[in-house]
Every structure is written in C-alpha cells, then in structure tokens.
C-alpha cells in the first residue's frame, strides 16, 4: 500500500475509532437500490406493468408497504417483498423515493379517450386527485403520467374489491362504465 494512501486511511481510521462495531441499519440508498431491478433506476420504471415510484409521498409509501405486508392490499409479489423489511427500513426507503424526480412517460394513447377522460376527471376525480393527479398525495400515488397497464391493473383490483377505496371513490367508480373508466385512466396516463 502506498504511504500516501495509508495516511489517508489513517485519518479515516481515527474517525472510525469513535464508532462502535454494532451493525447499523442499511442506508436508505442501499435499501432503495434493491428495488430498481423491478421498479427501474431510482424508481423510474421503464416497464409499463410496474409503476413509477419515484417522487411518491413518503406517507403513502409507508402506508402501502404496510398494507402489502399485512395482505390488506392485494398483490402478486409485493406482499412477499414488503414482509422483508422493518418499519424503520421502509421509512428510509419512503424518504428516499419521495426525494427522487418523477419521470414523465411517453405512451401510445387514444386521443379521443384522453379527451373524454379529461371531462370525466373534472366531474368525478378532480376534487381529491387534484392537478390532474400530478401531486404526490399522502393517500394516493402520482397518477399523472403513470403507466396505463399499471393503472388498469389497479382499477381492476379496486373493482374486484381486492383493494379498498374511500367511500366517495367507490360510489363514483360504481357509476362509471368500463369505457368511462378506460378513458379516465388514459387521461391520467397522458398527463405530463
């Protein structure tokens, strides 16, 4: 080892003397980077069946992961993953992803459906999912620019009672036709 490097190591070793050898929790990036294999680098998914999780509100992330772990929210795989982490670890990941930039997607959408969805949105969804679903709400994911296949899966789960909706949303969803739901999802997917 060259002397200069040894000296640099010495300094850091001295700094380390104060710390104990107890095993700390993994860092936020260490934990969050393991998600990228499925959810894309920094939570920006390139695969349309898997949602973007970058920029998601930390509170919502914590809620969703707990629901997955407790099987209160339906999943094929996220329950199996969520049960692998402590509450503290999930909180670290939540803060990490909340700090990532939300990626705008480019999708092949139907302009007529998007337009129809826009009108339906104003009447049905805008009060809660305001700003066209672009906000990182504490009780919902970012819907604007989210991948359409993922949005479709989510709505299927809501309608099949596999995922719980707030009462107001449930009433609205029950009144909407399949074509109207599809138009709404296309509208959200189209937003930048």
């Amino acid at each position, binding site marked *: *080892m060259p*002397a*200069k*490097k*040894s*000296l*640099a*190591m*010495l*300094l*850091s*070793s001295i700094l*380390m003397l104060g*710390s104990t*050898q107890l*095993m*700390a*929790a*993994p*860092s936020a*990036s*260490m*934990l969050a*980077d*393991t*998600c*990228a*294999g*499925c*959810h*894309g*680098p920094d939570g920006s*998914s*390139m*695969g*349309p*069946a*898997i949602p973007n999780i970058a920029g998601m509100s930390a509170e919502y992330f914590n809620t969703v992961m707990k629901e997955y772990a407790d099987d209160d929210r339906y999943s*094929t*795989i996220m329950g*199996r*993953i969520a*049960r*692998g*982490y402590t509450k503290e*670890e999930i909180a670290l990941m939540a803060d990490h992803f909340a700090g990532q930039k939300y990626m705008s997607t480019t999708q092949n959408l139907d302009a007529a459906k998007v337009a129809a969805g826009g009108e339906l949105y104003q009447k049905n969804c805008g009060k809660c999912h305001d700003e066209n679903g672009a906000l990182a709400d504490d009780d919902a994911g970012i819907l604007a620019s989210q991948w359409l*296949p993922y949005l479709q*899966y989510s709505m299927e789960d809501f309608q099949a009672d596999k995922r719980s909706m707030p009462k107001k949303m449930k009433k609205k969803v029950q009144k909407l036709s399949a074509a109207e739901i599809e138009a709404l999802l296309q509208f959200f997917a189209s937003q930048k």
Partner: protein
Amino acid sequence: MKQIKRRDFIKIAGATAAAGAIGFPTIAAAAGKKQVVIIGGGTGGATAAKYIRRADPSVEVTVIEPNEYYHTCYLSNEVLSGARSIDSIKFGYDGLRKHGVTVVHDMATAIDATAKKVTTKGGKTFSYDRCIVAPGISFKDNIAGYDMAAHEKMPHAWKAGPQTVLLRKQLEAMPDGGTVLIAPPPNPFRCPPGPYERAAQISTYLQANKPKSKVLIIDAKDKFSKMKLFKQAFERHHKGTIEWVAAKDTGGGIKSVDAKAGTATTGSGDVHKAAVTNIIPAQQAGKIAIDAGLTNESGWCPVDHKTFESTIHKGIHVIGDAAIQKPLPKSGYAANSEAKVTAAAVVELVNGREPGTPSWVNTCYSIVAPNDGISVAMVYNFVDGKVAKVKGSGGLTSMDSSPAERAREVQYAYSWFKNITTDAFGG
C-alpha cells in the same frame, strides 16, 4: 473485513508520526484518482460499474469485457420458442460510457493480487485499487465427449448469444415427431429454474409448429427450483409434450455424448438419439476466477458477504454467478443486487471508510406458457457475517393463483426485464 481493518490500522498507526509531520493538506492533495477494474460486462459487472460512478464520480472505473454486446441469459428461453428475437436480449456498452465508465473490449487473462494489476490477452496492463471479478460461469467436464466440437452439435445455450441462435435453428430445422432432449446440470448452477422454463418454452413452440414432437428432460437431479409450480404447468399446458425424468431413474442423468453419432447416454446405459440435444454441463466460476486462484475446491469463489471481497485474495471482489453467495441464488437479479452492495462497499473502501450494512433482493420470473408466469422472490439481510433470508419474506407464486394473476406475472416479467436491463446497461 473488520480484522483486516484492525490489522491495517496497526500498520498505519506506525506512520502516525509521519502523518503529523506532513500534515493533512498534503495528504488530501496527494490522494490520486482511485482506480477500479471490473472484469466482465454482464449484469453484475455492468451494474457495479454504473453504481460506483453514481456514488462517487471521482473513481475511475474500467470494465474489461471481450464482447461488444452482451446477451442476457434471462428471457433467452423466449428466443428458443420464437416469442422474441435475439436482438431483444442484446445490450451494448454505450450506456456505461455515458456514466464515464471506460469499457475495454479485451479478455482479462491474469490478475496479480499482490501488484494489483490485471493483464489482458491484448497485452495491456491495468492497475487497480480494487478489482471486481464478474466472469459468470464456465463448464466442468462432467459429461464425457462434450468437447468444443460437441458444443456446436449439441448446444448448451447456457451463455446466451450464438449458442441460443444455434439451438433455435436446430429447433426450427427438426422434423415433426422428433424429440428434444434437455439435460439439466447438477447443483449449483446459473439460473436454477432455467432448464424447466426452457422445456416449457420449447414445448410451446413444438405444440404450435410440430405437434407430434416431444421434450424429454433427463435431469442430473431428483428435484429442482419451483418444482411443484413447474410440474403443475407441465400438466396444465404441456401434457404429453414434456416428460421429466429424475436422476435416480437414469443412474444420474446424461453421463456421456457422442456428438458425431448424435447420441447421449445415461448413467444406467440408456442411449438417446434425439432430433435436438441440449446439454447443460455442470458449472463452476468463469475461467479468469479459476486462473486467478479465486476459487476453492467447489469451483466457486468464497467471499465475505458484507463486501463480496474474496476471502482468498484481498482487494478483489467476486460477484454474480461465480461467487459463493448462498442463500442468494445464481440469478440475474441477485447479480444486480450483489453488484450494488459491492459497488457501495468498494466506494467506501477506496475512500478509506468502513462499508455499510448490506441488503439484497432476488426476484425471478419463469414464463411457463403464453400468459402464464410464475415467480419466486426473497429479501435478504446480513446476519452473523453472512447473507440470510429475512424470515417471513419471499416465497413462490401460489399454486392456486388464477389465470389472470398468472397473466399479470408475465407482464411483470417483461417489465422487470426492461427495468433490470436499464438499471445495468442504460445510460
């Protein structure tokens, strides 16, 4: 690691007087660029290169990889069935270059762990502060007669690329009514569910194009990954097309081949002359890991799980299929996850800091029929110096999951593929 750190500290402590004399600014100014050399540009090597640069752009990273393109083994079984093209699993290195990684297309032939130098077939020498070896697998000589010439007659297709294309061509050329013989290897090997997904993919192709044909799996094992789910899928989608035979019924599976005659012989002496023979030999770490003395008697590389640093040669980390990472599997996802743990550790180590606590995930999809996917997943943490499964996490697709759920898992598999390849190779 900790012991080494302490030992280093004693050595370094001797230099304290000198440090005091020279003073801090001199040391800081004298700190040269840190060099990391990565051998192998597969999923593990590429991910490690990128994540080191992301964490510390002052570290110079060189990837030494013989090929200009990498073909992922994952989803290569869909190339065999014709569900996707070979180009859809092909990735170049421009993405890494965008991250400031130097990619050298050459073959690493030796590592001098003392001088901290890697030499290549092209006659170049690369110095490193830390070296990461991600060479994938090489084959053992467990099947008599399976020499290089036989590889061309009876492709293994266990390293994706030309071998995958060759096996696909053989499947296309075979007559209806022929048998495809698959000979899966003994444990441990790259992609444990792979041979069985392969059988399902080939069967899907045969059912549509050569319906009188069969897939015969003569295994070197009595059980295999996701076995119940695969057997269910074979029953559900491939009944009469796929037959699986356990090692105990054949004297241990295929033991020898005669490539010229086109025959494969089991341990109990049964001779099979199939239309297409896919021999997947027993495996060990990639050649450079063996040549560099990084392997133990098992043929794989023992590593400190906290940093994936070799326990044989300090300063060299081994990741991906070549490492002894159990209970992590030898999968693409695990290689990606190990690469990130190692990248973070290497950045800490070259900066003279203690590496943090690691965390890993594995998720692995198998597509067992059109619109039918199954998965296994697990979260891993670091317990008593080793990788451990987090209790209560992970597991398999449910045996009674619905067709809709299975269809969704296929779409998740495709999206996973987009994301993991972007994570590893994207700019």
